[in-house]
């Protein structure tokens, strides 16, 4: 099975086309997987024979935040690209500008596959890692589409203050909270663009619903299901879906699981239908949340912290200055400087910046619940805390 790395594809985008047109199933991965090469190879070896041709594999994190391989069938994803082309009024779009990692299922399907199926140009950039090159691409854009995550909006507005890019005619958001409050910034940057909120999840590969920005006034309103997609909720208000475009299997915890054709699959969110026929998200189904488009598991973060710290620790959730979900770590008692450094280095070693807490605070002791567990709410509101470190975001 071919394994394609994102840096290879950045150097030669034709590798991806050849892999897609080749019969054999391929995996497309970022270099910084957070799991070793051995984990990937072992997981790929679990694919059943019938999935060793005509499929593709992406790496993602599941509702537990644990790494997971998602297996897609190429024909199903091509149908999704065709559906999106129609619903997102893609015909006038001549090119798409990449500002996200291409191995994200969002960028992979909405941009690379769409451009491949509809013979449109894909312009590669390094996104906000190289704002000068991104600006140049935006300035040169002609009837172009771009896919973004909401957290990029304040950064784009800061980097490109006072500038606008009329060559962008479609802007798509997915992979996290829709930037409803920042729509004026988006419209100032892209005055000619139609703006869409896309919602989905890894197993949906990746789209379930769609709405135009102006069709709702709340970020949580994710619009209506795509044609062929069915949505439902269970008693716990967990959002379930059936979709003709979804993944056909996953490999998680060293185990392959087939997704049966009639199965209702959990999206990982809580939701409810509205009277208008749209769907409104109510929050994550677990203590996993998205930040900068990446799923973060507080349990996984705690594992990292407790590997370097033997005192008490608890996380509480808090939005950062741009409204993006984040978390704060509270330690008790106060760590020595060397202990704090160990925790910080461990965070750097095991997690990307998006996963780092916004702050690390300390107190003499943590408030506890009657069952002896740390009181998360109490830790958030207690007054006698000291700030030890912060991200300055």
């Amino acid at each position, binding site marked *: 099975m071919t394994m394609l790395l994102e840096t290879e594809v950045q150097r030669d985008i034709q590798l991806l086309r050849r892999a897609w047109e080749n019969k054999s199933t391929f995996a497309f991965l970022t270099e910084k997987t957070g799991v070793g090469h051995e984990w990937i190879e072992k997981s790929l070896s679990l694919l059943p024979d019938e999935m060793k041709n005509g499929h593709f594999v992406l790496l993602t994190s599941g509702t537990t935040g644990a790494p997971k391989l998602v297996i897609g069938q190429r024909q199903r994803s091509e149908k999704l690209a065709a559906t999106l082309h129609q619903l997102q009024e893609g015909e006038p779009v001549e090119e798409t500008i990449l500002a996200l990692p291409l191995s994200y299922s969002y960028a992979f399907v909405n941009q690379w596959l769409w451009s491949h199926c509809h013979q449109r140009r894909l312009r590669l950039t390094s*996104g906000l890692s*190289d704002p000068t090159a991104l600006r140049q691409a935006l300035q040169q854009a002609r009837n172009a589409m771009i896919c973004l995550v909401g957290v990029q909006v304040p950064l784009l507005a800061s980097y*490109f203050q006072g500038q606008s890019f009329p060559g962008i005619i479609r802007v798509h958001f997915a992979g996290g909270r829709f930037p409803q409050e920042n729509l004026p910034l988006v419209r100032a940057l892209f005055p000619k663009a139609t703006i869409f909120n896309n919602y989905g999840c890894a197993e949906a590969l990746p789209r379930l619903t769609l709405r135009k920005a102006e069709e709702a006034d709340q970020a949580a309103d994710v619009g209506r299901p795509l044609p062929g997609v069915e949505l439902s909720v269970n008693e716990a208000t967990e959002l379930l879906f059936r979709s003709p475009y979804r993944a056909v299997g996953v490999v998680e915890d060293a185990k392959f699981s087939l997704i049966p054709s009639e199965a209702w699959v959990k999206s990982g969110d809580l939701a409810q239908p509205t009277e208008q026929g749209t769907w409104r998200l109510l929050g994550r189904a677990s203590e996993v949340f998205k930040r900068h488009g990446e799923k973060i598991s507080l349990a996984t973060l705690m594992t990292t912290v407790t590997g370097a710290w033997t005192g008490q620790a608890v996380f509480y959730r808090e939005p950062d200055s741009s409204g993006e979900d984040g978390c704060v770590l509270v330690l008790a008692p106060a760590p020595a400087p060397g202990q704090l450094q160990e925790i910080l*280095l461990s965070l750097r070693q095991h997690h990307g910046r998006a996963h*780092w807490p916004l702050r690390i605070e300390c107190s003499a002791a943590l408030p506890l619940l009657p069952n002896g567990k740390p009181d998360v709410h109490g830790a958030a509101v207690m007054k006698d805390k000291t700030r030890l470190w912060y991200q*300055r975001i």
Partner: protein
Amino acid sequence: MENREKLKKVVEDVFLLQPGEFRFDLRRDEVETWDSFGVVSLAVGIQETFGYHFSPAEASGISSVADIITLLSAKGIKFDN
């Protein structure tokens, strides 16, 4: 604290450097945590420490610790050895 020490502390703190990793000739491409959000954090850290706010163009153009010193020196902030 001297300005060189202050700058070292900010850079170590923003990018979570290991002891001994900081150098005054450290380059952005040597530190994987010096990403786009790291650039924003660095700009905030510099403003808090030295009172100077990098413009977006300045912040994104910084490719080394030496670049930071050059920029701040041009604003009258001294980094004598």
